[in-house]
């Protein structure tokens, strides 16, 4: 078994291009995704038209500031403001007309016109909430009968880097796991050495297990690099649970992915076929398991399907460990599910690929 492991490591490290890609995926790729993908609106471009009293309007405008908003741009009239929105240079336009200022000064309900580019619907909605809150705070004398104390647990500042880098890491593990493990088998099939492997006086199941283990170990090394350098190093992600639980679930998940890859390898004859099948299986796996958007927001049918996805349990367990700080006992169902999926897939894959006749 150690001979097979050694051989697979050699094959992997000899392919310098592949090593570089894998390293890139586990470092830069996660870094870029964590830093770049911002889902909560920041730096919203804003423009305004002022037809009323400068002093009052400037006072309101001074409340629109970074990080939520860019410096507001003054437009001469409503027409030029609209044009900027149509060319998508500006996302939010506020029109302070005379009536608004007069009503505000005389204490009547003043209606403020807000023009908003709602192409990105969710962001537009949150931006409207920002504006509303700014206007509420602008009125100091406003007294609410009770204060509302909102606490966002686990990630109080809604830091998207933590969430995004973990999501990207899990997507990368899925992608690389599927490709690397399936290719290990199919390369031998393509070269015709697979039958020879099975003819050797070693059990077929042992060969399969060793081959998958070799790639799982490479993945685990990649995960260590990614978590150490990027997740903890660059982004300072807090971990509320135990890191060993994360390693355990990653290890089990890699095997479950290995099971899927084994099935892919069993039905495909060439590497090209592997590539296609991987894409067809990987995309739904990643996007419908709740990596990027919460499962509870999806349709019930997809929620049901996701019970068969090993990624679902991995994502939930990882978020539980990093953010919610769950302990070993709470995570037990996830470990069990990953293990069960891995065993079933190994059996199916073995039936198809592990025997000569």
């Amino acid at each position, binding site marked *: 078994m150690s001979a097979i492991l050694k051989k697979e490591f050699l094959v992997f490290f000899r392919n310098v*291009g592949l090593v570089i890609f894998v390293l890139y995926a586990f470092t830069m790729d996660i870094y870029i995704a964590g830093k770049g993908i911002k889902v909560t609106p920041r730096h919203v471009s804003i423009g305004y038209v002022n037809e009323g009293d400068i002093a009052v309007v400037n006072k309101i405008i001074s409340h629109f500031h970074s990080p939520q908003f860019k410096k507001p741009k003054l437009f001469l009239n409503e027409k030029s403001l609209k044009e900027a*929105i149509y060319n998508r240079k500006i996302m939010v336009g506020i029109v302070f007309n005379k009536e608004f200022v007069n009503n505000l000064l005389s204490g009547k309900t003043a209606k*403020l016109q807000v023009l908003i580019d709602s192409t990105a*619907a969710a962001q537009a909605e949150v931006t409207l909430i920002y504006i509303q809150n700014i206007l509420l705070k602008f009125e100091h004398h*406003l007294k609410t*009968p009770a204060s509302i104390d909102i606490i966002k647990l686990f990630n109080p500042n809604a830091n998207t880097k933590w969430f995004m880098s973990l999501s990207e890491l899990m997507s990368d593990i899925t992608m690389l796991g599927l490709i690397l493990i399936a290719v290990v088998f199919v390369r031998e099939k393509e070269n015709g050495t697979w039958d020879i492997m099975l003819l050797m006086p070693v059990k077929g199941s042992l060969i399969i297990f060793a081959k998958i283990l070799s790639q799982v170990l490479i993945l685990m090394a990649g995960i260590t690099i990614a978590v150490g350098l990027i997740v903890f190093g660059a982004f300072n992600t807090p971990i509320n649970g135990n890191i060993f639980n994360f390693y355990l679930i990653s290890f089990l998940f890699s095997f479950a992915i290995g099971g899927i890859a084994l099935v892919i390898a069993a039905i495909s004859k060439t590497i*090209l076929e592997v590539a296609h099948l991987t894409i067809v299986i990987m995309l739904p796996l990643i996007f419908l398991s709740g990596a990027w958007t919460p499962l509870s927001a999806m349709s019930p049918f997809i929620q049901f399907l996701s019970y068969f996805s090993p990624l679902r349990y991995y994502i939930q367990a990882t978020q539980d460990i990093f953010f*919610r700080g769950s302990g070993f006992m709470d995570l037990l169902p996830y470990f069990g599910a990953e293990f069960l999926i891995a065993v079933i897939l190994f059996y199916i894959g073995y039936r198809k690929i592990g025997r000569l006749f």
Partner: protein
Amino acid sequence: MRLNVIKAYLKKEFIDLIRNKMIILIYLIPTMILILFGYGIKLEVTHTRTIIIDNDHSKLSLEIINKFSHTKYFDVKVENISYKEALHKLQTNKADMIVIIPPSFSKDLYKGAQIGVFIDGSFPLRAVTIEGYVEKLLIHGFNIKLPIKIENRNFFNEAMRDYNAIVPGLFGLIFLVVPASLAAIIIVKEKEVGTIFNFYSAPIKKIEFVIAKIIPPFLFHSLNIFILFLWATYLFDVPFRGNFFIFWLTSEIYILISVGIGILVSIVTSTQVAALVLSVIITVIPGFLYSGILMPISSMDKESYIEAHIFPVSYYNHIIYDTFLIGQGFKSSLNVLYFIILCIYAFVLIALGTLLIKKAIK
């Protein structure tokens, strides 16, 4: 350039693609991505699993619970559990939000009464949105007369539908990733199998070879423009307000850009797996980040704002969102400028690919 040489090469490519069933995947993958992402990416927040702990049992607290129950945003359960138990439910992901109404809440009104709200912050966008909903709801719940009322007019996506926001943006992602990887693979496959030596030794010019390799992915994906358009307008009901000709023409140019990227990838890689992984990695992230799906480009910070203008996807998606939701077409000079930039990109990438491709073993 000799047409009969190109014709012969083309014939071989088409037979090859159809014979190894690539053709199915060429049409399956883009449709699959569009449908999966279209249905899968949900940015609006509904059905937040909410637990309300009512320790007050007054008329006011019931009113607040009612307010929560009567929106699509919250799925409310009123439970009589301790704060600790509720927190454990958050920790094990059995609830998304807890609202705690303290005892003697209605008595303490105007004397420092406080409602506690705890939101699971693991999904940042969801947490921020829920926070906003809760504030809005509670302020309206207290019937406060606000001095300023916001009258918002939504442009382009009036009903704030998630589909309108996401589906057009996916075009830029799909037509960047899929043609690029196909073009890269059909060239690198020759390298891996060894048939590239036919090209090295035959009296065929580089430009002829490149044209013969560009045309199959280009033609196959041209049909995909129409297929995806139909999915977007019929399945997802995205309005189409612009000029179809502009939409089609821009998409064809954009596919050329993508194929150009694929040729460049094929030059630096020598195995099909490496070509696939490289072309996916260098196209997916920019295609997603700068597509405008998640964030309009105008609202990015300085760094990403500049980066976005390096990648062709931002120009393409600007025009695509325009043709779907806005409908200014070439009346807006900005769209014309972006179209010209795309043409330059296509020309430069393909010229570069033709120059750099090798016709001998190094």
